[in-house]
């Protein structure tokens, strides 16, 4: 239950914020979007072991797709959001699926290229120009509420994964030979996580037009990729840590603009500290030396 607490606290805080400080709704919504994207990235990085940078691209494509759909089709905002999120999820799964055969470092490089190339192509193409979308104040408020709901949903997903068959399969994925020998198709399990996190990130990105955030390639630039990477690195499998990291990394530039230039420095320091902690931490899971209690238990078991 405590694992879901950060998500619940953020949702409760965000629900109260508009009445306390109405002007802070848009910055708070951007932070919520980073929490969602960071949780999605931590699902992939922490659970499936996939350093997937392309989340930034799906995030950007979600925003652009919603704006483009609204311009082309006479549909209400929420229908455009649903269409755009579904289309981007399908594209994300189709592109990522063959990449799952790659080694993780190659996978990271290819997805980094996707994260840079897709926003650049979409922004620089001249066939179709997306105009700024105008949505009503009511839609903006609805968007904020939906973002809170998605944060709760992402939290529920992350918490459920801990004790689910899928979570077990992903934890087992480190040993591919053993997975194969028990009939586990680990690539399929990883693809399911990719679909879940891509759809979560794309849905979060689809809300961007309603927040009047420019859906240009700069938004999905190096800053955003680095921020999402830092959140995923800090969090690992701990989704609650993703919330804390997103609050700091995305919240500082939104609420303290003077410090926004230091965001990358902060992200870099966080990644370094996290990596150092993993290397030098005395309690490193499977590599922990056997303590005397465990040794006694083993001897007792042997005596049986």
């Amino acid at each position: 239950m405590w694992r879901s607490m950060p998500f619940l606290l953020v949702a409760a805080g965000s629900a109260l914020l508009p009445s306390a400080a109405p002007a802070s709704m848009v910055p708070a919504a951007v932070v919520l979007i980073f929490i969602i994207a960071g949780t999605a990235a931590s699902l992939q990085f922490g659970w499936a072991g996939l350093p997937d940078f392309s989340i930034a691209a799906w995030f950007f494509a979600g925003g652009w797709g919603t704006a483009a759909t609204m311009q082309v089709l006479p549909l209400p905002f929420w229908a455009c959001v649903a269409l755009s999120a579904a289309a981007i999820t399908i594209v994300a799964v189709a592109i990522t699926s063959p990449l799952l055969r790659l080694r993780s470092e190659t996978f990271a490089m290819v997805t980094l290229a996707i994260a840079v190339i897709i926003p650049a192509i979409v922004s620089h193409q001249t066939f179709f120009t997306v105009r700024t979308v105008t949505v009503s104040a009511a839609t903006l408020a609805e968007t904020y509420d939906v973002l809170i709901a998605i944060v709760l949903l992402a939290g529920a997903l992350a918490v459920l994964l801990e004790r689910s068959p899928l979570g077990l399969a992903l934890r087992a994925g480190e040993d591919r030979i053993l997975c194969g020998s028990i009939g586990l198709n680990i690539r399929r399990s990883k693809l399911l996580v990719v679909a879940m996190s891509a759809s979560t990130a794309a849905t979060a990105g689809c809300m961007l037009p309603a927040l009047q955030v420019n859906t240009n390639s700069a938004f999905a630039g190096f800053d955003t990729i680095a921020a999402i990477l830092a959140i995923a690195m800090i969090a690992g499998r701990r989704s609650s840590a993703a919330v804390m990291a997103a609050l700091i990394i995305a919240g500082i530039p939104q609420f303290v603009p003077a410090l926004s230039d230091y965001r990358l420095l902060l992200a870099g320091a966080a990644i370094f500290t996290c990596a150092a902690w993993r290397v030098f931490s005395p309690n490193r899971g499977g590599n922990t030396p056997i303590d005397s209690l465990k040794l006694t238990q083993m001897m007792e078991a042997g005596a049986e």
Partner: protein
Amino acid sequence: MSAQVLLRAQHLRLSFGSLTAIDDLSFTLRKNEITGLVGPEGAGKTSVMDCLSGLRHPASGRIELYNSARPLLLERMEPFRIVRNAGVVRTFRDPRLFRRMTVLENVLLAEFAARSIIWPVGNLVPYRWNRKAVERARYWLDRMGLSHAQGRKAGELTAPMQRRLEIARAAALTPKLLCMDEPDIGLTRRECDQLATHLLELRQSGIAVLLTGQDTRLAESLCDHVVVLDRGACVAAGKPVDVCGRPAVQRAWLGVPAGHDLVPRIFVSC
């Protein structure tokens, strides 16, 4: 009357560079039988296991499994399909477990994999809520005498317990054929006897077993049929009592040239 054929391997060949691991090997496994694949170190036993479980693909030859209307060809199948579609499960020479998971989780994962319930999104529900799966996993742990250790990490178990856990996990996959690579290695005589009891129980529940070994003791006491390998080729096959006395088998084991006394090769070379 001979039992029904379950698996037929024909003219298998496998090489690692200039080293021939399996040389034109053919053998047959029957349902409800324990078959021993025996031979000295380097005879190619583990390579045969790897081919049966899909970890290696033979350079030539066929492996046919007769469990459905049409025989399944295993020699080009992926490992996870061999487990799911053909029901051929293997264990490893050194017990291979998910060491950071608990004993119960190790068996539960096999339960979920066997029933293909990892893919649907509905199975994001906590696994402990799936009472049937937990009961089935506990059943196999109980049969292998591990129910008292179900909450412990697999990496903390002793070697014989790890071996039993590996068998419980394999049995939870409800295999048609269980391939065990040198299951007696590192076990005492008493533990070997316990292992033999477990394997006989598995045979009684309709699982065919293929086990490899360097020691003929387990094969003689347990196997219905024995295939003796030497340098990747079959030198003898039949019932253990008929096979173990043959000169070709003694040559394979002890390195005795034809017409010489039974002196191990190591002393001859000295």
